[in-house]
């Protein structure tokens, strides 16, 4: 374990909070006046998935958790978890749904993802900036929702719905930003 300062915080980082492993879901600097600064965080407990807020003094020391990243293939959903297989060891691990969040909508079987492990337990996956998804349902004849601009909603191979420009056709592949769920570009 290594000691870091609040200045090293980044979104998605894993730290020890009140003796328990947590992930930094969000953080922001706050300055209530008179020179001193604080860092407000939202922390997710790895064991329970419970999210809570905590405000650190800027400069407070925090223990960072050692996290390993393994390339793994996504297999199938299993109850509240999603099963992955290590590309090198062939070990299988389940990643609890609350560590994947909305990204579950974009998981594609047999695609490779970077799974984050802490002491052998899966604690999340590193989301790519863009995911490539094939459009499986698109209403060709639709003039789209002209009130809200030249867009329409299509269904992609994972079942997720995405709002796209009118020119996107069924069978095409598009890139989607998994963080916002929004269309980025037509992918080749």
């Amino acid at each position, binding site marked *: 374990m290594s000691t870091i300062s609040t200045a090293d915080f980044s979104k998605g980082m894993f730290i020890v909070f*009140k003796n328990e492993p947590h992930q930094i879901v969000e953080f922001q600097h*706050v300055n209530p006046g008179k*020179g*001193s600064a604080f860092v407000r965080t939202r922390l997710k407990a790895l064991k329970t998935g419970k999210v809570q807020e905590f405000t650190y003094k800027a400069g407070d020391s925090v223990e960072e958790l050692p996290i390993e990243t393994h390339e793994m293939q996504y297999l199938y959903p299993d109850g509240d978890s999603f099963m992955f297989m290590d590309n090198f060891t062939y070990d299988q691990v389940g990643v609890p749904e609350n560590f994947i969040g909305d990204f579950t909508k974009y998981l594609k079987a047999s695609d490779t993802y970077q799974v984050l492990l802490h002491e052998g337990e899966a604690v999340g996956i590193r989301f790519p900036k863009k995911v490539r998804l094939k459009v499986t349902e698109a209403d060709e004849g639709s003039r789209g929702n002209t009130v*809200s601009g030249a867009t329409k909603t299509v269904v992609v191979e994972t079942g997720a719905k995405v709002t796209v420009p009118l020119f996107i056709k069924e069978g095409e592949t598009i890139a989607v930003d998994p963080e916002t769920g929004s269309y980025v570009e037509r992918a080749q």
Partner: protein
Amino acid sequence: MKTWQKLKNNPALWSRYLLRERVIKKIRSFFDERGFHEVETPMLIRHPPAESYLDVFETVLLDRHRNPTKAYLSTSPEVALKKLMVAGMGNCYSLTKSFRNTEAGDRLHNPEFTILEWYRVGATYTDIMKECEDLILHLLNTISFDHDKAKPCRQGLALNSQTLSYRDNYINLAPPWERISVKEAFQKYARVDLEEFSTIQNARRIAVSMGYSVANENAWEELYNQIFLNEVEPHLGINRPTILYDFPVAVAALAKKKESDPRFAERFELYIGGLELGDCYTELTDWKEQKTRFDKEMKEIQRLGKTSYYYDHDFIEALRVGLPECSGIAVGVDRLIMLLTDSVNVADVLLFPIEELL
């Protein structure tokens, strides 16, 4: 997407942005009816007041021969308004842009923001508490919230003239609002006796016993603020507005000390829906104390390595001539509009938010 593109794509968003013009008009009519002067205070200034907790924007003023002089963007209209009160203007307000650097990137701040600041002669902070209630209710009662047109963006939240919905909470705005002193709030929410907490030794011991990490270099004010931010602030103004008043002197240096208990100063903060909307003082009128305070603040600015400047000595001179007894408050207008449009992010109520620059 830029905001103008979002608006072009989704015209239903307009109602959220257009609420601003109605709020601005109604703020003006409120102060008009009460006989206040509206003042245009400068945004470009030579000498900011000394405030170590703010970062100023520095720029360069050139004369006709292109000789440079440092200039700054104003962090608030406070000193300009106070000088005018020394000159005899009487009750006055400014509704203007102010600038605070390094405040980009979170949901509650935009480095360029709209501020409403008003001062009432002969008033104390209790008068301003009442005036805040009057102002907010005036806005709710006179702005027509267009329910139908607003629906697509979850707006039109003034359910009636005294109830707002904000972030899935109902806020009852019927006056009088909750008034709780900082001391009471620490007792109630953090179970901390602020009188016991008042020395650095006790503050350290109490913070450690509550599970906070405490380093030797941590100042009293840091320990106080960490407990305040973690244990007190999340409870303020949730289902009705909260006026949090009487701050320890160490965190209210520009406010007048209470005569009944000089360890506390006459300052209050207004919270509605978890948003800190305003900060009020019974103003310090003692020029010597103000100068001492400014000198101390400048040392702090240098220690922190922030943009340094020559502070406004003309303001000290004005105080020496004599600021009438008065009280005033600064209100964040963008946050007020967030509240009235049920917006979580300040960028959602700005047509040109800072994110579009970065």
